[in-house]
């Protein structure tokens, strides 16, 4: 049980680190110029996450972490789809809050992001649905993290 707790904590930490790489891409808005640097970093972090999950023996916990990993990967796909990165300026503060928050305390910053989505992004974004999917994924991420906790 103790070993499971440690391995889960390590895997969660690595998943969160992967998520932070994606959030930094959205915040720094330099993905087009540093595309290879980020992709290499993402690839290495993905390998770390998969190795960490592989160490978890409890099947149920491993399944939830697996889902979390896939969820984070889906969050990261926004980097290919948003043509105009200046759209991220609208949610700059909210993304920073999500980045800075502890993994089990994401509820408030996600709610703030949802509020900005409803008030500004639905009008300003070229394809608001992509951002809605992103928020939905963040909410699921938070719910799954709570389940593990």
């Amino acid at each position, binding site marked *: 049980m103790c070993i499971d707790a440690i391995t889960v904590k390590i895997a969660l930490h690595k998943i969160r680190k992967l998520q932070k790489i994606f959030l930094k891409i959205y915040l720094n808005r330099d993905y087009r110029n540093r*595309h*290879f640097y980020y*992709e*290499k970093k*993402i*690839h*290495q972090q*993905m*390998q770390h996450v*998969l*190795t960490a999950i*592989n160490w978890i023996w409890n099947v149920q916990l491993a399944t939830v972490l*697996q*889902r979390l*990993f*896939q*969820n984070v*990967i*889906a969050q*990261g*796909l926004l980097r*290919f*789809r948003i043509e105009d990165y200046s759209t991220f300026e609208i949610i700059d503060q909210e993304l920073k809050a999500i980045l800075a928050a502890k993994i089990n305390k994401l509820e408030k910053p996600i709610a703030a992001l949802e509020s900005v989505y409803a008030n500004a992004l*639905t009008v300003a974004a070229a394809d*608001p*649905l*992509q951002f*809605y*999917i992103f928020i*939905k994924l963040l909410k699921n991420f938070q719910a799954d993290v709570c389940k593990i906790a």
Partner: protein
Amino acid sequence: MQDRIIKNILRNLIVLIIACIISYFFARSETFWLPMAALFVMQVPLGSAVRHGLERFVLLLVVVFIFSYVVQSPYSLYARAADVTIGSLLGIAGNLLLFPVRVDAEFRREISLILQQYSNYLNSIANLLILKEVTPAEKQRKIVETSFRKHFPDWVYAMGFSITLRQGHRHFLVLVDKIAQLLFAMHYAARYPIENSMLIEPLKNVISPAQEMLDDIIQLIELKPLTEGVEDFEEEITILDNVFKNVTPQLDLIENSENYIYFAAFIYDLKDLRLTMLKLLEALSLN
């Protein structure tokens, strides 16, 4: 893969034997420095034998310096450095000359294997979404993940990888990496199956040519000629998108149904998958 491992073991063994013989007759310091240096500089990623070999050689010189001044007497410093230099040169030469691995061929072999697994994974994800078959998708996911951790040719990302091959191979690998990410995201979305039967047929019409396109890419990577041209499935995706929009005409309605949101995400993933595969084909045609 096994072939490469056997070659590597044989190469290490031969260099070790030669290093031991040279060390026995010509070593000026302790006999272990020369064989140890030879073996140490040989443990480098594929395609970057010289750069990583030299880096390891410098590291060994630092170790020799510390060892000579801290553990042993500094009198034999130059003798140890000379042995390490000979050993390192032997190791680097061994890596370059004995059973040389053709980096390009190795890359093609590993990528073709990985793309084959992706093709099977895509099929199982579609079955999860349409037929709700959970187990095959989980099984394929495990295979793809294991391959991603262990057999992914990320030695292409290593510093000092062949200058002539670097740009093209890295570009290619980033695209293959992107396909893996798209498949993981599609698997996530497919966990929320959609009940609307109107979407099933158009979805099948997209998955099948997508798999065919992947198979075509594999054939091109294996340097086999294509019997027919590559078929694009842009039209099929547009049809699927239109049917989806007809089923859920307004954004408000999509937001009310969780499964529809994930299906929308799945369509985005399919569109990205198509674009990524087209880029792969473009990169292959440039080669």
